[in-house]
């Protein structure tokens, strides 16, 4: 995992293109625009929500460790109209701050941001943590290669996360 101490770029100089991309990704997730959200992913995409901050997903269980195929399954289930745990869907708004570029080489950028997410479904739940993104420059613009969600409470029992976190 990326060493989160290694700050490569001060927030003010993070390229606007990168920030725009993840803010857009956040909006699609907030608004349950599943198909559009799915289209952001690269073919080798990994969507990861570990059960702790420094766990090896090959030997330790995660809350989510979706390869691109499983991201597709997750979206297909949400689109089926019978995903009870998102019927009705959560209403959400998330804030992204404290952007940092952690690395930039070979056409791929690692970007980090803090987030807070207000999710309402029956009651309002606050989710918070850090997003780590790996973004790839392609001929068609940026694509999402990896999104890691480090929840501050990932060692504890968490509520259902059937929405896109």
């Amino acid at each position, binding site marked *: 995992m990326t060493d989160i101490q290694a700050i490569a770029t001060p927030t003010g100089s993070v390229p606007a293109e990168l920030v725009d991309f993840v803010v857009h990704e956040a909006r699609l997730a907030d608004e349950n625009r599943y198909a559009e959200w799915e289209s952001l992913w690269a073919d080798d995409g990994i969507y990861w*929500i570990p*059960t*702790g901050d420094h*766990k090896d*997903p*090959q*030997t*330790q*269980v*995660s*809350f*989510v*460790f*979706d390869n691109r195929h*499983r991201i597709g*399954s*997750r979206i*297909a*289930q949400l*689109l*089926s*109209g*019978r*995903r*009870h*745990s998102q019927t009705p869907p959560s209403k959400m708004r998330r804030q992204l701050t404290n952007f940092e570029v952690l690395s930039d080489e070979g056409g791929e950028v690692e970007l980090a941001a803090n987030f807070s997410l207000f999710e309402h479904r*029956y009651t309002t739940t606050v989710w918070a943590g850090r997003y780590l993104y790996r973004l790839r420059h392609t001929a068609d613009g940026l694509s999402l290669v990896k999104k890691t969600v480090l929840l501050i409470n990932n*060692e*504890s*029992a*968490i*509520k*259902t*996360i*059937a929405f896109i*976190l």
Partner: protein
Amino acid sequence: MTIRLEQDRLAADAVDYEELIQRDRVHGSLYTDADIFQKEMRDIYESQWVFVAHESEIPEAGDYVRRRIGGQPLIVARGKDLKVRVMLNRCTHRGNMLCQSDAGNATLFRCSFHGWTFSNDGRLQGVSFRGGYEQSLGELRSELGLAEAAQVGTYGGFIFANLTGDAGDLEDYLGNAKDAIDRLVRMSPAGGIDLSAGWMKHDNNANWKVVNEVQVDGYHPLFVHESLYKAIKPAKVDYSSDELRVAVRDLGGGHSEVDYTAEYQAQDREFIWFSGIPRSRVPNYIEAMEALHGPEKTHDILVEGPPHTFIWPNLFLAEMQVMYIEPLSVEQTIQYTAPIKLLGAEEMSARIIRQTEGAMGPAGFLIADDAEMGERNQVGLHAQEPEWVLFARGFDTEKIEPRGITSYDRTSETSQRGMWQHYRTLMTETSND
């Protein structure tokens, strides 16, 4: 120090459980009444056998994990004598929580409040500024060790504890559920399982009995899991078929199971329980199993697969996962899920971890929807009419088999009736004292 059962009379001792739990229905208040919950903690969780941990979580001397039973914080630790002890996580001086980490290795626990130290077998070692007491240090030590569960036992690596009194022999308590643990362990060519991949922890706003009931419910999948079967992949067996040979079984003692054995045997295909993978994906596993059992028995084991068995009151052998629950309040339950690594079958481990994340836990394609049902159930049960919850399906399909009361109608509520009849016995025994 031994733990004393809170003998004070509880408000819920006066309830007539024989009236509230009938053959074919139970009263809704059993899921929503906080006084009844308090009595459940005393009469079920604190004075009967419950699952606390697995030996693979604490393999070495000094290893420990923190757990809770009935709201009481525990340390489950392996001493330097390699014995497993279940101790209350409370300093015997003024009650501070002694151990702060979820898991670790320690020879000593030092209380952060005034510095007393306890060895990992619970004995009081050091008292800071020891001169301040009338007793000698030796006397303090003999009186003030950590409180320990009255009974601790293991079967197939599963550690069970009874906090207070005498709950009888562990194997008697396990009864017909013992075979389910055997069935799981025999999946490993090395004769053991390992839960070191860790637990997913899922917070459910539902009564613990609601969470248990759905684990062995063959009636709900077509409805609750429709989105998975239609959008992603069909169920491993055809739940809509009348020909399906899936049994639901009350094993006695509150234990129950959904038994796919007859259906799998009829299909005679290996790994139906594991996405139908071909043998070529796990050659070393096959070789080790055949070396141990020979080809024929290996085939049978790979056809029959692991158990789908609920062990009263908090453990669920969910095929390639182990789950357990922790009741926090009458309306809140934590559900824990760990992938099973089969010792000697390491080439399956990563796949089992991925299967666990796909199906189970807070984001799982299956369990997120089961949890949603549990939470809606809890809301519905707050309506006062009708008063009863029905468990009347399938009486006339039941027959007595050696393993227990069995129905080959998988929608029969045989498993839930088994849980409730045992509950009724436990809740009645102490009411009339």
